[in-house]
């Protein structure tokens, strides 16, 4: 069924982060999204996660509320989003105008052997099937008014605008291919990653 999924995640993330300015703060969910944002160019304004599965949107929310003049972009996967699904409602209740959430949905738990997530089609074989869970509909139902799904190359410019400039909260589901990609590892020390982001944002640790 991967023929349905056409977009390359690294190209999507490179487009999302192209010409990033210092006021673009990015949280990358654990696993492939952390490697993706690092592949696009590691910056102190990036927090690539090595753990904390399910907490990515909440980190973005706390940061967006603390820094209303900066743009906060959460880039995470379908597995992480499913684990923290309630955080969509929590974020919606706060109406953060500077928060954008982009979920790269390859319908797999990519770090653990590509087991199907709930977003996979229900009509597949026993090792590949899910429930056809639509995270954009869940986000909309959670109270995030501006939601959309991206499946085609020609939607990328609109996706970038939504992620970078449109008044939030914004949610975009991007259906991406299942790919085996080189690991591009960010720094692993959590305290260092936190301190460098605070230094970049606040001018002190």
């Amino acid at each position: 069924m991967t023929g349905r999924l056409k977009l390359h995640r690294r190209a999507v993330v490179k487009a999302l982060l192209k010409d990033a300015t210092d006021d673009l703060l990015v949280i990358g969910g654990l696993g492939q999204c952390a490697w993706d944002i690092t592949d696009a160019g590691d910056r102190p304004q990036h927090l690539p996660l090595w753990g904390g599965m399910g907490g990515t949107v909440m980190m973005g929310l706390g940061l967006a509320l603390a820094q209303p003049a900066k743009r906060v972009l959460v880039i995470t996967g379908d597995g992480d989003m499913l684990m923290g699904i309630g955080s969509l409602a929590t974020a919606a209740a706060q109406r953060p105008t500077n928060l954008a959430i982009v979920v790269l949905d390859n319908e797999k738990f990519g770090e653990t052997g590509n087991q199907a997530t709930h977003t996979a089609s229900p009509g597949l074989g026993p090792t590949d099937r899910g429930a056809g869970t639509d995270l954009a509909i869940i986000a909309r139902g959670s109270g995030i008014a501006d939601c959309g799904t991206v499946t085609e190359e020609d939607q990328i410019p609109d996706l970038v605008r939504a992620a970078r400039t449109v008044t939030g909260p914004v949610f975009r589901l991007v259906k991406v291919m299942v790919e085996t990609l080189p690991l591009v590892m960010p720094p692993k020390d959590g305290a260092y990653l936190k301190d460098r982001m605070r230094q970049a944002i606040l001018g002190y640790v």
Partner: protein
Amino acid sequence: MDWRDQIFETLEGHGVRQVYYVPDAGHSKLIQRCQLSNTMKAIVLTTEEEAMAGALGAWLGGEKAVALMQSSGVGNCINMLGLSKTLRYPMLMIITMRGDFGEINPWQYSMGQATPEVLKAMGTMVFEVDRAEDVQATVNAAANMAFEGQTAVAVLLKQKLIGAKNFVGKKQP
């Protein structure tokens, strides 16, 4: 002054800006004061672990956060509490106890009795309060240690202080 108001004023005095909570009857007055505050954002959660990640985001952006919950919610936080230890950021928790002194709902006993131990197992410092006159000083000490020491600190408000939940007047089936 009522100890609930003392907690609010202590948090306000420390400059806490983000208040993450899953409601508890014991916290209801404090939650309401935070909701009505001009300096604080009161953030209702679907599960307590959201507070652990939200507080990280707040700290990255230069704001102080606190998490309010009842002891049954502590169990939901355990894996996410590792974030505070790994990234070394403040995680101040104020927890109202259930399954503790005089509790008559046995479904609360298991998590209530395990609460201090599981917090300590995750490296969280724990201070227990069972007298109204100790609340302000304990919350103040915990806030100082969390925000200055960039670590996880929990204050447990025991049922000797808050009272056991009263089920009187509820009809038996």
